[in-house]
């Protein structure tokens, strides 16, 4: 079924009364996901945002709670305030990335309330990629530029209209407002099929990567791999699946807040112990951890690789460390007796 962009825009604008709407907009720095009040503000022709939309569920710096001590009385206050949210224009890689984050923030023992309060109150409207950047490589992971995984409603841009697919119950509630849906014409159906069949031209073979990494903990590959890395956090902060964080207390006199801040495996403080000992005190062990976590540990723990091929880390890296080459290098590395 399709909906004209005019009708879609009307439904979008009406949602503003009930939802905070986050959508791609064009700013001085490229494409960013930001709050919008009208469909007219939304950038429709874009590859993807510079930074992933994960921050809407997992902010870079988040107050978990605040506390105050007065005499013998201690008051603790939750800082969590969540609005119903629609995230519009999420690309398939990022929608899949959120499903991977779900696995981190919920397991059989613990559900992270901060993440899931936001996640549960949000509706993701995914939009297929009509254009594919040279750094996109989602097809490597069995994903697709028109994959609907992780979206509640999935749209394909047909120019004047959207092809609409409602995926989940949450999506249904929002899609109920879409009016004047009609069947696709034969030409439009052909266009939809073409977009659905598209693959990224860049692909890396990950079929043997996990099992190879099982045998590579002490491999000399890590010795030279890390040489040019300058140890910044660009790759982690621009990754839709990186989720490591630090929890700290910001205390002033007798009151304070507990905050959660993004951390990154390349950062010097990441594994620094209180004793001063750092079990990962060099780039070699940090890079090994990054690769192992994404392509080995996460697979063993959650059954999926923790990379969706969005290519942001490739574009952002100041020294052009290309994760595709890093994977390829691991695939080809000579095994040594461990």
């Amino acid at each position: 079924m399709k909906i004209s962009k005019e009708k879609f825009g009307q439904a979008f604008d009406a949602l503003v009364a009930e939802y905070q709407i986050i959508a791609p907009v064009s700013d001085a720095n490229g494409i960013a996901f930001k709050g919008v009040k009208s469909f007219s503000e939304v950038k429709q022709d874009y590859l993807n945002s510079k930074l992933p939309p994960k921050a809407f569920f997992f902010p870079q710096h988040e107050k978990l709670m605040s506390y105050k001590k007065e005499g013998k009385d201690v008051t603790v206050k939750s800082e969590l305030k969540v609005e119903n949210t629609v995230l519009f224009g999420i690309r398939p890689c990022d929608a899949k990335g959120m499903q991977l984050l779900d696995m981190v923030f919920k397991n059989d023992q613990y559900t992270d309330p901060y993440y899931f309060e936001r996640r549960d109150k949000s509706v993701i409207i995914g939009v297929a990629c009509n254009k594919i950047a040279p750094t996109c490589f989602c097809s490597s992971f069995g994903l697709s530029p028109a994959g609907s995984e992780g979206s509640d409603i999935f749209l394909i841009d047909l120019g004047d209209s959207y092809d609409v697919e409602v995926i989940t119950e949450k999506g249904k509630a929002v899609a109920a407002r879409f009016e004047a849906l009609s069947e696709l014409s034969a030409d439009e159906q052909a266009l939809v099929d073409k977009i659905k069949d598209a693959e990224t031209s860049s692909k890396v073979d990950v079929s043997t990567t996990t099992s190879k990494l099982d045998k590579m903990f002490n491999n000399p590959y890590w010795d030279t791999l890390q040489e040019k890395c300058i140890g910044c956090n660009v790759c982690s902060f621009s990754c839709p699946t990186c989720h490591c964080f630090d929890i700290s207390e910001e205390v002033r006199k007798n009151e304070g807040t507990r905050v959660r801040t993004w951390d990154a495996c390349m950062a010097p403080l990441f594994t620094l112990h209180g004793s001063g000992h750092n079990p990962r005190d060099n780039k070699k062990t940090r890079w090994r951890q990054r690769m192992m976590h994404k392509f080995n540990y996460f697979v063993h723990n959650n059954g999926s690789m923790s990379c969706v091929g969005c290519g942001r880390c490739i574009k952002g890296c100041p020294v052009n460390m290309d994760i595709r080459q890093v994977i390829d290098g691991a695939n080809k590395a000579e095994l040594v007796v461990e």
Partner: protein
Amino acid sequence: MNKIINDIRETARQLLAEGKVDVVIGYEKGSLPLKATPCFVHSSEGVDSLIWDETCENNLATYVAKTPGKKAIVAKGCDSRALAVLLQENQIVRDDLYIIGVSCHGVIDQRKIGAEVGEILEASISDGKISVKGMEGDKEYLFTEVKDATCQTCRYPNPVMEDLHIGDTIEVSQEAAAFADVEALESKSDSERQEYFKEQMSKCIRCYACRNACPLCYCQECFVDCNSPRWLTGGVNRAENLLFQAGRVMHLAGRCVDCGACSRACPQGVDIRALNRKMTKDVYVMYNHESGISEEGKPALNEYSANDPEQFLVKE
């Protein structure tokens, strides 16, 4: 293949084969168009990956102290200036270093090209022209049109210290340093300038790519990572971001060699250099000091000269 690349490779081959160095730090072709990437060559078989062109934008001096053993480094003017400061500050050992100097006409500002043609699909450089095929269109540029802002004001395209020079040297004008960019910001009103930095600092995501790309940010513990005392909360907002950036600039006072590595490394396009350039200008005007322009000099803050202009002092 051009002669400079050939000579770099032959030099590297010889140095490695003769065991004079353990590693050659240079550039190889990157995975993206118009991108070179730093490379570490450990044996003479690997030297044929070395390249030299207008995409060699990283400052390789940043690796020297962290790379063990004897090393050769391909150095442009700015890389060599950073090496000079590192030597003045006793961070590296001259005897462990072999500098392969190359004069640099400047590097390409890819961001400028990307803003016009979209994602770059293919590109080629020849005879001072850059032909680019982008997702939003194709375009041909003259190198001078897309030369990085840093390189446009560069006064030291030739290495200030080297063990071997490869290729020609570049003639440099003898005029005093020009700071038109700094003067433009200085001439703005306080509120305009505040607006400008508010906008810039709101883009910063505190990834520290600027700090880590900088050859002269080598503190074992950066003040932002220090938790006792805690200078910053870890909060990512304009105020904290400015404190980080301003703190970094102050720490680079009289040391920054204006290579622009920080601005080029920034994934968010923050105009980091605006702050550094102001500091560079102040040091130049007040102390007549340019950092890292010779192996012998001392950092501005380590030296006193009765002839300093010191216009900020009230004199008899």
